[in-house]
């Protein structure tokens, strides 16, 4: 479940990401009435098994079974909920309504949200890892080691969003960022799934990495994401201040 929107008096339009049929919008009738049993199942984040039947313009929801009620586990924690919402919006933007299989995006989202609900890592780390990997699946794989232009093995010092990652001294355009080597190591770990390294990263590197991931994401996704500026980073900001 990616998104719900109110429709008329008691209905909702739901947006779901499916493994085999891409992103689908459908109408769920009467689910805002508190007597509706399936309303609770059709909440964002939930991993569900949905049956649809063909409608006039949009399909209609006929049956819903819960696989994993992730929404309830996330909504009680504001940091998880705001970070998780960015994952939902990203999944929506990186997939199409063309009824094509989206196996990789689907698997990334489900495992990312499960990891968030299960407290496996800090919410912002899970978010950044998800963003890097879903962008990579969409064809925008950043390079955190060899030069993004000529392939010369790293480590390099300069990072350039437009060029797609780290740049060697010969290729580096003026105005490239120069993140700390620890931050670059963290970004590489998040992209490859090296959680031992990622979990040990200090707050300074986490904050810098989040900034670069956000910039990279905004560069590749038109019009940006509405939910990204609303991610709750108070805990991290707080820890950051203490480190100073």
């Amino acid at each position, binding site marked *: 479940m990616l998104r719900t929107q109110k429709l008329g008096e008691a209905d909702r339009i739901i947006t779901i990401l499916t493994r085999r049929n891409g992103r689908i919008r459908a109408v769920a009738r009467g689910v*805002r009435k*508190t*007597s*509706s049993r399936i309303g*609770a199942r059709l909440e964002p984040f939930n991993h569900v098994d949905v049956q649809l039947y063909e409608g006039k313009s949009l399909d209609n929801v006929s049956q819903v079974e819960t696989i994993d009620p992730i929404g309830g586990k996330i909504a009680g924690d504001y940091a998880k909920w705001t970070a998780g919402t960015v994952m939902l919006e990203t999944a929506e933007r990186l997939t199409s309504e063309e009824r094509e299989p989206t196996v990789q995006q689907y698997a990334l989202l489900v495992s990312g949200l499960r990891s968030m609900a299960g407290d496996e890592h800090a919410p912002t780390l899970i978010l950044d890892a998800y963003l890097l990997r879903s962008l990579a699946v969409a064809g925008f794989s950043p390079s955190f080691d060899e030069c993004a232009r000529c392939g010369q093995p790293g480590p390099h010092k300069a990072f350039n969003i437009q060029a797609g990652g780290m740049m060697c001294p010969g290729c580096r355009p003026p105005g490239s960022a120069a993140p700390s080597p620890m931050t670059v190591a963290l970004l590489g770990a998040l992209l490859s799934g090296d959680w031992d390294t990622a979990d040990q990263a200090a707050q300074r590197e986490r904050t810098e990495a989040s900034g670069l991931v956000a910039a990279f994401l905004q560069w590749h996704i038109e019009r940006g994401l509405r939910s990204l500026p*609303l991610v709750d980073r108070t805990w991290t900001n707080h820890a950051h201040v203490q480190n100073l």
Partner: protein
Amino acid sequence: MYEGAVQELIDELGRLPGVGPKSAQRIAFHLLAADQADVQRLVDALHHVKERVSFCQTCGNIAESEQCRICTDPKRDASVLCVVEEPKDVVAIERTREFRGRYHVLGGSINPIEGVGPEDLRIRELLGRLSDGSILEVILATDPNLEGEATATYLARTISPLGVSVSRLASGLPVGGDLEYADEVTLGRAFEGRRRIESG
């Protein structure tokens, strides 16, 4: 398509929530056939609601003057505040007759994917009301759906450090619905069984 004035009316009616093109057409022809006096009453009602009714400066509820009836009623308990999303939720809770305190209407719920953050709701006004220490208890009665739950989580975290007791409506309410659709008995019970949220 119809002649100018009729089509204009159908278009306007069609912009109302829950009114599709078919209904808009049916209402338009009903009005066309109706007595002049009946139509005039509807016109007056529409005029009056825009002229006389605005939002209470204190709580954000619908009001016919600067403050709403509930905020100016001396019999209401000024030490308890019930936080809801919309004015229609005030109506739903008033129907239960379980609550004798006052309200605070947020104007919606936090909804990041639609670009609605805490700054876009009347949360600063809420914190302002809590700052003088006269309010001892806040009951969070946001919708029993995910955005409502997350909004309550955010509010509890923000309010608890102020030393105000915070509780959330009991979970007897079915999840996924709108508060306004809860029947009086269920909603009343939810008030009785509200649970305290510990700060942390």
